[in-house]
């Protein structure tokens, strides 16, 4: 019953968001595009990193793969096929990275993803300079901001729906168990590596799609633009601010932070990086579980604790 109401509300909100750009100017639509893009990025990031607690710093690697694939293929293939190709490439890279790093302790995964974007950027640059002889490409696709926005909005809805479904599925339970204690999870019968790999690949594919869909906004694309590490950083902050283990957490973190960063970069372009860093440190310090958990934590003491003798619960 509750679920039905929630779905009706979500559908109404989606419809409202879909017609919103009809009443906005180009700047407003631009904001909506950026905001929706980050809602998807943060939600997709949290889909994997939230339950498993593997911090991925590779967001922009996949985002860039998506954008660059569109730049390379948009002239030769029909648009849906281009998106499909982008997905396939993102998925392949995710599987290679995941297979080689997810078996190991989380720290190796973080370190590897930290440099992945730089590695792919250098490889693409090397390929362009040595094989195709060009660096930088133009994208001529007949899309306006509103078309990109609608695609992103659909992707956002699909991503949230998918997250919701995974949360309720066996896979979701498996991931939360893995995030808590891999040894216990494995001894309960969970194929730990496969569960992590599946989610990492899924999350990476969605991130690739965001890059692919947003690419036409740039018109001119080169590796340094689409592999900008700030994108990984922003995605991470947004998901953490909202709370990476909640369905709506990343989206709720993404919207205010995106607007804040837009305002900051317009008004304090020189100090942007410093403010960003300080902000980020603050979030790790004061909201380690995200805003949603903080709000719940503030509410919880009001509820009565179970009337059990608790004197030994500290023993575990």
């Amino acid at each position, binding site marked *: 019953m509750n679920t039905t109401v929630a779905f009706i509300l979500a559908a109404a909100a989606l419809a409202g968001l879909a017609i919103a750009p009809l009443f906005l100017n180009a700047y407003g639509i631009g904001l909506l595009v950026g905001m929706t893009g980050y809602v998807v990025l943060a939600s997709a990031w949290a889909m994997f990193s939230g339950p498993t607690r593997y911090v991925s710093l590779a967001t922009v690697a996949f985002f860039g793969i998506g954008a660059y694939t569109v730049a390379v293929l948009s002239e030769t293939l029909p648009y849906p096929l281009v998106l499909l190709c982008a997905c396939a490439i993102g998925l392949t890279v995710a599987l290679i990275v995941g297979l080689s790093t997810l078996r190991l302790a989380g720290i190796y995964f973080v370190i590897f993803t930290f440099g992945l974007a730089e590695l792919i950027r250098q490889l693409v640059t090397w390929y362009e300079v040595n094989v195709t002889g060009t660096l930088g490409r133009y994208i001529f696709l007949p899309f306006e901001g509103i078309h990109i926005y609608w695609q992103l909005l659909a992707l956002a809805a699909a991503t949230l729906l998918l997250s919701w479904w995974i949360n309720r599925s*066996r896979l979701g*339970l*498996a991931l*939360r*168990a893995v*995030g*808590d*204690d891999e*040894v*216990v*999870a*494995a*001894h*309960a*019968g*969970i*194929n*730990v590596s496969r569960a992590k790999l599946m989610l990492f690949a899924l999350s990476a594919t969605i991130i690739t799609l965001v890059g692919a869909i947003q690419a036409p906004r740039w018109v001119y694309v080169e590796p340094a633009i689409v592999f900008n590490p700030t994108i990984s950083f922003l995605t991470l902050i947004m998901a953490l601010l909202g709370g990476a*283990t909640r369905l709506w957490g990343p989206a709720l973190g993404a919207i205010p932070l995106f607007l804040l960063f837009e305002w900051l970069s317009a008004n304090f372009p020189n100090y942007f990086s410093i403010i960003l860093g300080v902000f980020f440190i603050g979030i790790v310090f004061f909201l380690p579980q995200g805003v949603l958990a903080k709000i719940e934590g503030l509410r919880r003491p009001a509820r009565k*604790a*179970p009337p*059990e*003798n*608790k*004197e*030994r*619960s500290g*023993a*575990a």
Partner: protein
Amino acid sequence: MSSHLQITHLRKRFGGLVAVKDVSFDVADGEVVGLLGPNGSGKTTVLNMISGALLPTAGEITLRGVRISRLRPDRIARHGVARTFQLVRPLPSLTVAENVLVSLAFGRFKHWGPDARDLAEEKLAFVGLGGRGGENVANLTYIDQKRMELARALASEPALLLLDEWLAGLTPSELQIGIDLVRRLQSAGMSVLLVEHIMDAVRALCARCVVMNAGEIIAHGPTETVLKDPGVVAAYLGDGHA
């Protein structure tokens, strides 16, 4: 014909240290066997090899004729081996019922949906946690966490249950509850390998015992005989007492 659980010439080496040397024993269907020995004698290492947490250096482990040594822990779990841990390991971000659901969903029979919820409640009721599935595991007392861990192990409907000092750290009254629980499992026909230090519990539950010291089996047979064995007494109390 091979037994229910058959361990043959099992060996484990960590670098230069041989933790388990040539260990062989078996557990029959429906039998509760005690695995004893002083700290560091290699009991938990044996348990870890059965459950797949460690790979044996040599030797074989079969369950109902199927070789399970060298499989991944999740495969072994799905073959029907369930275990508890020396220090309780609840999954803290899951509720009590969800902890049990994990084993139901990924154990031998892969239950999911409303019937899995019912089964989880059933397992929790069996260990004495009926109606408390919605609670946060962090709020459980120590014995209740141990109960929950047992329920989680039982939820995979194992063919063999490994209890690693499951009764350790309980008060005398809790201990009696714990022994009764294992005894109920025993009468339900569960095969159990019990690593335990509490001799009263071993006497109450196991007809047969295996005693290890320094990685080797030093005694093996009916519990009362084994516990009187001078070698076993010496291993536990030091040679001066033998």
